[in-house]
């Protein structure tokens, strides 16, 4: 089987989906660091299988999401969840005015259920890729899944191919976190940072470093995400 495709971004999705019949393993590592009164370090890991069901429909399974956290109270590894992700491509980012895809994800774990939907837009202009994601997340967690949280986010990215193997760019993430879906308690976070992607015949690695431009406590001041994908 062949590769599913290369990611040019790590905090955004691209509109194009994997080739029919392709299978790929992706490993994600995300390090988040917060300083100040709500300081913590957290490293998230994801192991994902991505399969091209048709040329416009991609199915992915997050085999496991787990993380290591360290804060003043405790530290340790924790299993988080397993998830199913579906992406359907509607239009092509090269030949159509804009490439669009719709995205759905169902995540379930230890006292955790999450639904996520996304609209993905993309335009390829020669060596430049521009991408936009609008995301709505609903999260239920805790005992009896009684705690609720919503999140609305937008992300914008640009990636420029400086050689057939290397792309560099920028990612911007703007999110509203709504604990218990209450508007008065919402937190606004704004992250911005560079990305770089390197690809070879059967694998790729893409990384993004984001810094928080807002000053929200208990949210990471810095995030680094690296995705390594390999064809199976």
């Amino acid at each position: 089987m062949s590769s599913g495709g290369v990611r040019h971004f790590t905090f955004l999705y691209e509109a194009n989906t994997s080739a029919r019949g392709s299978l790929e393993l992706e490993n994600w590592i995300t390090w988040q660091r917060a300083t100040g009164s709500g300081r913590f370090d957290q490293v998230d890991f994801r192991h994902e299988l991505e399969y091209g069901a048709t040329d416009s429909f991609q199915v992915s399974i997050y085999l496991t999401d787990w993380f290591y956290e360290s804060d003043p109270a405790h530290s340790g590894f924790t299993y988080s969840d397993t998830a199913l992700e579906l992406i359907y491509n509607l239009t092509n980012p090269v030949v159509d005015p804009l490439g669009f895809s719709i995205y759905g994800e169902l995540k379930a774990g230890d006292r955790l259920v999450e639904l996520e939907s996304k609209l993905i837009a993309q335009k390829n202009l020669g060596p430049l890729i521009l991408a936009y994601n609008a995301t709505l997340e609903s999260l239920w967690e805790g005992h009896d899944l009684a705690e609720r949280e919503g999140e609305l986010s937008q992300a914008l990215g640009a990636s420029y191919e400086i050689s057939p193997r290397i792309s560099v760019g920028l990612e911007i993430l703007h999110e509203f976190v709504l604990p218990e879906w209450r508007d008065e308690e919402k937190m606004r976070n704004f992250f911005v940072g560079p990305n770089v992607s390197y690809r070879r015949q059967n694998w790729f690695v893409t990384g993004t470093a984001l810094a928080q431009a807002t000053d929200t406590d208990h949210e990471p001041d810095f995030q680094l995400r690296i995705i390594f994908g390999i064809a199976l």
Partner: protein
Amino acid sequence: MAMICLLDLSSCETTSFTPPPVTTELARSNSSQRGNIVMLREGRALFVHRCIECHTLPAFWHYSTEDWPKIVNSMSQRSNLKPEEREAVIAYILAVRAQKKF
């Protein structure tokens, strides 16, 4: 706001970035004689869908007529192209090159 910017950009003069559609004229200029109009259309569809899974589309003039088949062949496994699909992509690229006389 970001969406508006993206839409605005997409409405700019982007035709130079868009691989030309397959016309009877393009098929006639297919000096390599690789494939008919149906094959060329399939080749274009595969070119704009499969190749962008890994990289942006290079300009047709960027590689020579001799180099293009080797390049497509070297990436055909990664892009999951069957032999006949690979031939269709090569036929389309060479037809465009022939028409544009790069």
